[in-house]
């Protein structure tokens, strides 16, 4: 496809480029910009982080899982070009000053992540750096550098990029839809088209699976599916809303969901990944489905001009099988507004940037001490995100007490036969699933049960 973008302030216009070439390979192999490093080739280490200006938004992204096709119409900054007029950016000079680099291989990615964070006005450095692995320093000097670096919220180069990006236009392409209608038309014409939004999953099929994912369509420009609407009684989240945008929304609308999303991937991943992608791919361990199922969310699907709305939990049929017809795609997710009782608990080997061993989400209404309605959903407990139907039934009508919880003991085995894998054993998953209900009870009763809140 044809791709036009700004690279470190210069216009790059490529004709007939391989749309699935990664940005990192392009930078390193075709532009001799070897500052961005390949550490893992799957978006987990952050050594390849580049700064992408997308309309008005600055995003740090993993170049190793960013396709050339996604860059159309954007501006990219690499570590080589984040300085100010030949001087180091304050983040760079503080990294030197505070001894924030040792082997130096992760350093370019750390620098770009921190520069992007400054522009976005963020100083929650642990979250900002959750997607940047460093094996040498133990992070203390990096955090110190981040804390002490003078803030440049609008570097000179950014001002210039903002101007220039208005003058370049994304190259027009057949696989570059501008609206949901165009996606629908494209899929009707060629139902095998692979839809690529953030590519945080699909890119791995290329970099690790060594597959050809053609034909594909890049959805980066589809505005009408990138909105969050607050309608009466419900929120409508467009399928192309990034997890980062969802996170910002949840901070206001549903704190427990926001806390879960804080630990979803990393800033780089959240800035690329979309809610629609997390659902459409049918992963049993994606973190959004259990939350949304517990919230009673519905899925809006579209095929050509036909639209249907189903309960999200009905979408997941079996491992690897979804209720998605040929040529059909996810348009939006609708979340009811009654989210006060919703709590989400992610248990993983490492707190940040890890895949859940168990993700348990609870939404229990209590009236006069009696459990009136229950929605409990889990990720990681079955081949699909799944409700704990037997447990739910056993709870309804019972007094809200630890005893009622204990009486569900046998119901869990009817609901779940989890797997043993690298993240946890089946036995652990079952035990933790039950214990998370205890945690929910404690939290609702005002007792502290969050190890992240413990101070020395």
């Amino acid at each position, binding site marked *: 496809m044809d791709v036009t973008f700004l690279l470190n302030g210069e216009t790059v216009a490529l004709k007939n480029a391989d749309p699935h070439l990664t940005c990192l390979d392009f930078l390193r192999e075709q532009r001799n910009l070897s500052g961005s490093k390949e550490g893992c080739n799957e978006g*987990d280490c952050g050594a390849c982080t580049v700064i992408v200006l997308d309309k008005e938004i600055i995003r740090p992204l993993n170049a190793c899982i960013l396709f050339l096709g996604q860059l159309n119409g954007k501006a990219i900054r690499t570590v*080589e070009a984040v300085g100010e007029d030949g001087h180091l950016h304050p983040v760079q000079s503080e990294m030197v000053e505070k001894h924030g680099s040792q082997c130096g291989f992760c350093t*370019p990615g750390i620098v770009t992540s921190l520069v992007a964070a400054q522009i976005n006005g963020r100083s929650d450095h642990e979250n900002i*750096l959750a997607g940047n692995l460093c094996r040498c320093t133990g992070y203390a000097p990096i955090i110190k550098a981040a804390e002490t670096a003078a803030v440049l919220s609008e570097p000179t180069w950014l001002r210039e990029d903002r101007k220039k990006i208005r003058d370049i236009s994304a190259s027009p392409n057949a696989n570059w839809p501008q609206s949901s209608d165009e996606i629908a038309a494209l899929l009707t014409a060629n139902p095998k088209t692979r839809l690529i939004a953030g590519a945080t999953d699909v890119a791995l099929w290329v970099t*690790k699976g*060594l597959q050809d994912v053609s034909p594909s369509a890049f959805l980066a420009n589809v505005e009408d599916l990138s909105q969050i609407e607050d309608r009466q009684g419900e929120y409508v989240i467009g399928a192309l809303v990034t997890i980062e945008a969802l996170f910002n929304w949840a901070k206001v609308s549903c704190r427990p969901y926001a806390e879960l999303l804080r630990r979803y991937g990393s800033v780089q991943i959240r800035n690329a990944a979309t809610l629609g992608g997390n659902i459409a791919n049918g992963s049993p361990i994606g973190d959004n489905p259990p939350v949304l199922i517990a919230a009673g969310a519905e899925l809006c699907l579209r095929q050509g001009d036909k639209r249907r709305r189903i309960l999200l939990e009905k979408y997941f049929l079996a491992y690897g099988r979804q209720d998605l017809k040929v040529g059909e795609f996810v348009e939006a997710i609708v979340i009811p507004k009654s989210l006060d009782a919703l709590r989400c608990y992610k248990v993983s080997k490492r707190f940040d940037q*890890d895949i859940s061993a168990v993700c348990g989400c609870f939404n229990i209404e209590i009236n006069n001490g009696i459990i009136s309605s229950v929605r409990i959903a889990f990720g990681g407990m079955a081949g699909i995100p799944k409700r704990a139907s037997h447990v739910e039934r056993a709870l309804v009508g019972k007094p809200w007490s630890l005893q009622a919880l204990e009486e569900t003991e046998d119901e869990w085995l009817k609901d779940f036969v989890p797997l043993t894998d690298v993240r946890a054993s089946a036995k652990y998953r079952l035990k933790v699933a039950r214990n998370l209900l205890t945690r929910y009870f404690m939290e609702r009763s005002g007792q502290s049960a969050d190890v992240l809140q*413990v101070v020395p």
Partner: protein
Amino acid sequence: MSVGSSFAHDAAQLHVTGQARYVDDIPIPQNGLHLAFGLSTVAKGRIINMDLSPVLDSEGIVAVITCKDLPFENDTSPAAKDEPLLAEGEVNYVGQPLFLVVAESHLLARKAATKALISYAEQLPILSIEDALAAESRFEEGPRIYKKGEASSAIRGAALQLSGTFSIGGQEHFYLEGQAALAFPSDDSEMVIHSSTQHPSEVQHKVANALGLGMHDVRVEVRRMGGGFGGKESQANSLAIACAVAAQTTGRPCKMRYDRDDDFLITGKRHDFRIDYEVGFDETGKIQGVSFIHYVRCGWSQDLSLAVADRAMLHADNAYHLEHCRVESHRLRTNIQSATAFRGFGGPQGMIGMERVIDHIAGHLALDPLSIRLRNYYRDSNLASVVKPQTTHYGMEVTDFGLNAMTAEMVESCDYVARRIAINEWNKKNPVLKKGIALTPVKFGISFTLTHLNQAGALVNLYQDGTLRMNHGGIEMGQGLFQKVAQVAASGFGIDIKKVKITATDTAKVPNTSATAASSGSDLNGMAVKLACDEIRCRMSEFLAEYYQAKPADVRFHDNKVYIGNHDLTFAKATKLCYENRISLSSTGYYKTPDIVWDRIKGHGRPFYYFAYGVAVSEVAVDTLTGENRILRADIIHDVGASLNPALDIGQIEGGYVQGAGWLTTEELIWNDEGRLMTHAPSTYKIPVASDRPRIFNVQLWNNENCEETIYRSKAVGEPPLMLGMSAFFALSHATSATGENYPMVDAPATSESLLWACERAQYGV
């Protein structure tokens, strides 16, 4: 003086701007080729048929090389000659290289490498320690045994006894820069190699053997590595040899880097251990006798396993004086990646076995483990004392022990006693969340146990304008070695550090180097550079004294000047004057560590020149509903002797602690029943991230000159701090023990799951 200053890493400016060049960043000509290995998919068996035609038909393929195509030696091993570059029929682990693809691009090479059609006659693999013991699958004829006194009778004779089994997981290095090499063929049969290796001389040797050349035909250059941690001591050989062979075959430059998943799958990791122990002690926790059996899972080839297992035995005492001690070590051959060097080199595993014994005794006696530690420490050394020094279980006198004083200082400065009481009270009030605290010491022996490796060379060239270029055998992998050694050179002439040029390590400049390993980098290379500087300074002094009619002893070098009696001149003028008077301004330097003698079979002698010491206190919190946990605070006092560069040393200490804590908490390696490594990428193998570091992190250097004559009386700092991470592990043990009456017997790594079961054991017993 330059030495002792906290200069930044020599390449810090290059790091932060992306200008620092690693092997994969070196531009290669248009005709350069890229390599990938085709890997075994079975753990044990014989290759019946290998159909490579689909590989050859793949896009962009230039050649496919099998063992039959190798012109000379087919071996990558550091010593035992048991590790073919490409399998010769027999396959010994999932991930073993079988053939080599040479292609026009990295991606095309990787794609082609997956396309071979291979049939195997599979055999039952030997995977676990138990499998290996049952099959008597081992290296060496039987276990090694080191001992002092009569452990078994001392244990039997003690008032109390305990025994246990402790599993300790391995660790993936996860250097951020994966393995990489690049070979440039040239005329006259010379081969120039750029390798991300800790051991360029070995790469040179192995490449020469593989090509049928002399070592003089092969030049290996290493400017920097993106981390090594032991994982590039022997594991870099394969890529360099592959590149050299392919470059010789095709006459074109060849580059190879492992994709991260391949890196996990192909290369060795830290050895995992099972340690069975028995201990006899009295009511105060004084140990009467202790016995350890180390079961070491070495993987399919010998690699460095014997030395690793030896070092584990040598650290089985950690910081404790044991009158009766026996250590038995089984080096087991299994069908997984060949375990290799990893920061600490067996020391951490040996040491944590001893700390587990201490923790277990404390649990049994319901005492603070600190009191057991203090009860059993070696005596602090006092050079003036006439009392004979205490000896280790391998007969080495401990003449520099200082942990009693360091521990006292730590207990005081971090308020250990009050915090432990407060934590125990807090735990009584909190049914679900539990806190824990632990203090653990480190005593780590410094020197290669293979004595002849304790040598180093350097080349120092002084130019007539007063600038200096130096070269030595050490490798810069992030630890700041190059800057430290540059500081030594600058101090040697009293000149500004900016006048010293750091250059890539190059086998053509300094020959026969040892690996940058065993924490020895600055001790050995710093000394070699210093001796070279001393030699040149001596020549200059003699000449200048004669020229100005003074005594050589009256010639002084400092502040970028040379003072000769009443005369002074700038250093640049002095070098110019020397040059014009035909004084050689170039010298090699050569250093070998004195006074070390070691018999690894008898297990007796003085394997170490000295010990490095440290003490750490960690505080943690555990959620006993899930086992999820957090390190809340860490305090460290670490002994680096008289520091060459305090900032770089603190960097090693902080980084070592976090890496050690990672090893013992979230970093879990899992193989499936077929012997395939399932945690083969950062998506499944979890090293610490920023939020895993302790929020409160106090690191203090112990101000203490090395009693041995090391480079400016400093101490090695590379490996010892990793073991400070043990304090986090034992704090987790403390926290889980608050859930019940029993000792929780936590295994390593203490993942959330492992801790949840530990809580159950604490409540209900084993």
